[in-house]
């Protein structure tokens, strides 16, 4: 390459950059749910991260004599059955939901990708993996999670595992079906013809082309995981109560719904808003990246 190339490349690059960012802006305008979801999610995540500075009280400090107080200036969201400040707890509690959502999404997706690729590309593994997944799929998610919680002690880790396990088959099936169709893609066939080794094919040709559906699937898993965490807590088999989470808060509050609805309402609203934002992001990504996915996911 000689000197003229970069000289002519520079304006081309900036022009392309400008065109891309223009396209991106247009693209964003075309997908309001995505924007709405992302903004909401950033907001919620920001509040949770900033909890130490926003919270007005120690989220764990009991004040039995001021229990179930309705919202007031001192307690914007009121207090719970033990007199703890709900506003502070709600701010802190987002962390559990976000951690559970994120971890489960990452774990389930990674496990699913490994098993799914094995099933899709290693004929001998296929039968075994898929039978196992069929078995797991046959047990309803929530029941399986509940049962897993029944045999372990409640902790953040066990909750994450219990929520992850039922999600894995979903990813495996997705990955496997993607793998089977990608395997037949001509560019994968071309790679084989070019003498590319299987691991390289998986890494260069198969995985990158799965990213879109996987990212979308992962967002849905994250949303489901947050809801499931709350559900398990609500049913009394979730996170241990000393971890403030929206789920445990609602579980605490469920016995007082008729006398102190705020104790359930505020964590519920925050949870719903978070799950909604993740779902919106997922839907938006799906529609924006690959509209054909809507049937698969």
């Amino acid at each position, binding site marked *: 390459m000689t000197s003229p190339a970069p000289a002519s490349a520079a304006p081309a690059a900036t022009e392309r950059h400008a065109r891309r960012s223009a*396209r991106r802006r*247009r*693209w964003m305008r*075309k997908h309001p749910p995505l924007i709405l979801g992302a903004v909401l999610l950033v907001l919620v995540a920001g509040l949770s991260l900033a909890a130490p500075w926003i919270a007005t009280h120690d989220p764990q400090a009991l004040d039995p004599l001021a229990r179930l107080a309705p919202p007031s200036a001192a307690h914007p969201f009121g207090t719970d059955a033990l007199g703890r400040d709900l506003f502070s707890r709600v701010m802190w509690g987002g962390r559990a939901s976000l951690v559970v959502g994120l971890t489960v999404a990452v774990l389930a997706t990674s496990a699913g990708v490994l098993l799914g690729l094995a099933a899709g590309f290693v004929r001998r593994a296929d039968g075994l993996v898929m039978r196992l997944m069929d078995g797991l799929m046959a047990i309803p998610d929530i029941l399986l999670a509940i049962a897993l919680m029944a045999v372990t002690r409640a902790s953040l880790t066990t909750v994450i595992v219990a929520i992850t396990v039922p999600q894995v088959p979903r990813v495996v099936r997705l990955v496997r079906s993607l793998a089977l169709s990608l395997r037949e893609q001509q560019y994968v066939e071309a790679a084989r013809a070019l003498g590319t080794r299987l691991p390289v094919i998986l890494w260069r040709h198969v995985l990158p082309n799965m990213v879109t559906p996987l990212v979308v699937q992962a967002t849905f898993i994250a949303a489901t995981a947050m809801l499931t965490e709350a559900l398990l807590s609500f049913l009394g088999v979730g996170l241990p109560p000393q971890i403030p989470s929206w789920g445990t808060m609602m579980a605490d509050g469920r016995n007082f719904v008729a006398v102190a609805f705020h104790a359930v309402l505020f964590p519920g609203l925050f949870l719903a808003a978070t799950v909604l934002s993740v779902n919106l992001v997922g839907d938006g990504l799906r529609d924006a990246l690959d509209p054909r996915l809507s049937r698969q996911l």
Partner: protein
Amino acid sequence: MTVPSPQADQAGRPPLLDIRDLRTHFDTPDGTVRSVDGVSYRLEARETLGIVGESGCGKSVTALSVLRLLPTPPARFAGGEIRFQGTDLLGLSEREMRRIRGNRISMIFQEPMTSLNPVLTVGRQIAEAVTLHQKIGRRQAWQRAVEMLRLVQIADPERRAGEYPHQMSGGMRQRVMIALALACHPDLLIADEPTTALDVTIQAQILELLRDLQAKLGMGIVMITHDLGVVAECCDRVVVMYAGRKVEEASVADLFERPLHPYTRALMASMPSLQGRGGRLAEIPGMVPAPQELGTGCAFAPRCPLATERCRRETPDFTGAATGHGVACFEAAPARHQPVVLHRHAGARP
């Protein structure tokens, strides 16, 4: 303007189909796509008009515009009119349009594999069209379906009528499509690349069948294709399209004998012939422009060996329609049989 005048033919009847300066645009987030940008042609009963052009030049959009099957939005009729037996189709209500579709104007599509409903028997699909447009009972409609299948030379039509599309080969499906299209004896049949997806032997069968049926039923046919061979075999007149415009129109014999537009000539030169193993083929450099990238000037100018400054500046009008051989080119008219000097591609030295 050189649009043919809307006058009636000798018998005093309006032409079967008369498209004038049709402009069909798509409003997309990336801007307006002028897929069809001023196309006019006319078709008489019992006539076959071929429309040729490369992929994306607006052949299908023109055809779908006639039946108003394009989704609006994003499609939009930016101008022109489509007169069918004198009535402007663009002015009809959706309900009136529905009475015309499948009844007086029918259409066959390119993909025989996917153009039939996979979950209904073919007999039912044909009968459905019949009951929709004609006041006859289900039994009679079914009878009609069987007759139509027989007409398109499907063996054992009584049994086949009860079968599903997946039980048939591609050629048979295309024949079912034809039966479906002709079930109500339309006056106009639009065939959008009816044989592109088929093998040559099947293609020959289908084209012959269409010719036969035209002779029997007397409909006008608009035959859309990108294969000049098909045009040569079964059309009376041809319209050559490029980038949403009509660039040349002539009778088949005229067109093959003395193509006027440089694009038409280049197209013919670039086709390998069945006559012998050749040396190098003539190439048309560059590629068909994307419709949203069209600027002013002749759309073919960037690829045209004869292009002048004027070509790049102004869009040439379509001239010579009255003589029966029209062309939209500044340089074409006088240049009879002038050899076209084509570019050799720079990178491909022998």
